[in-house]
């Protein structure tokens, strides 16, 4: 990266869930497409591609972002976390377990985005109020659950993670 603009295929390296990936991509390849097509990590879902639905949420150096509104090349060298990194050795992350137990999902399309957003919320606010949960999740849309199961899952995950 330097004083000359680049064009055409570029070698882009990122660390995803602790593993290094390098792939060739155009400067305008979105991070969502890079993760899905170049890294083969299809857990990150793509819905609206307009920044509205939240399905494509991933973490870049800890911050949750819309991967559909981020060029992969803009975050080259960063540490990225996707839903694939949440479960450890076949054991679900407490947030995942809570979603399963409390019917926080039906079709599951929106779920990866919700899981990462909830993980971020509970790191910042370990016992959030319902208002705080609603605010933090306002950028994630679910067309199946009616949100009540999701609310219950977040409350339950908060408890699990305290103990």
């Amino acid at each position, binding site marked *: 990266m330097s004083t000359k603009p680049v064009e055409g295929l570029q070698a882009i390296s990122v660390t995803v869930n602790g593993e290094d990936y390098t792939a060739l991509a155009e400067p305008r390849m979105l991070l969502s497409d890079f993760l899905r097509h170049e890294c083969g990590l299809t857990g990150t879902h793509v819905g609206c591609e307009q*920044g509205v639905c939240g399905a494509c949420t991933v973490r*870049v150096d800890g911050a949750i972002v819309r991967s559909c509104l*981020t060029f992969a090349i803009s975050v080259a060298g960063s540490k990225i976390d996707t839903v694939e990194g949440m479960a450890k050795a076949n054991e679900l992350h407490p947030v995942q377990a809570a979603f399963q137990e409390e019917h926080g999902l039906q079709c599951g399309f929106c779920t990866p985005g919700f899981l990462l957003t909830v993980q971020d919320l509970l790191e910042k606010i370990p016992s959030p109020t319902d208002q705080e949960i*609603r605010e933090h999740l306002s*950028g994630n849309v679910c067309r199946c659950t009616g949100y009540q199961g999701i609310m219950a899952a977040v409350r339950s995950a908060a408890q699990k993670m305290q103990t």
Partner: protein
Amino acid sequence: MPLENEGEDWRMLDAQYISPRSVAEAVEALKGGGKDAMVLAGGTDLLVQARTGLRDPRLYVDLKRIPDLMALDISSKGLHLGASVPAAQIFENEDMKALYPGLTEAVDLIGSTQIQGRATVGGNLCNGSPAADTVPSLLVLEAICVIAGSEGERRVPASEFTTGPGETVLRPGEFLVRIEIPAPSKGAADAYLRFIPRTEMDIAVVGAAVSLTLDSSGCCEAASVALGAVAPTAILVEGAASALIGSTLDEAALERAGSAAYEAAQPIDDKRGTAEYRRRVASVLTQRSARMAAERARGRN
């Protein structure tokens, strides 16, 4: 809404990219890129516009790797806010909340948490939307925009920066480096409120920012009021400010300020609200915002 194959086309078109490491490199890159070059910050406006065909930059100059633009400094002189600092970093900063609560609230209103992970105040201002949430706060805080270009740096007050919907004073090749805001004086505080039909993730129907200074007896020494989304750009409402100055922010003074906001607003009719409705909301929000700023200012005296 882009059609399926429009999206494909967008990805196939050639585009160039550069991520300069200094202001000087960015100036150079923009000069070389001509009129088809655009700067990219968080991309939360620009990438949506590019996807939907509204913009088609051939060269993206990424401003997220320039240390000067990524810096947030608060000193006794005030705030230096780099144009590329992400919103999340701003509202998680305790000094920001304490010194500029209104601006910090406005930043916290930009989109959802994921938008805030990358979106910037620089992008919010430079995109030029009349409804941009941080702009009324920048106006009442007398922010100065520091601009870089091939002719060097220049400084423009935030109140003169936006010239129309999507239009700013930026000349080709220029970009915003940082926003400077003076330290609040003793007894000063700000507030920002916006009205939207939902509670989150929507564009302001009206936004109202107020900054005011109270003396030790609770009398208002200085005030500034700005409205968003009721004119082609955010506007300062002098009449509302003068209604507050000299008062103790009693009901009568607040009502006069509200009426001044009602008169100054020149909103449009659209699906989000009629012009008359927006004018009334402007009046109510101005009063509420003034009350909120006053409460905070009392706590500081």
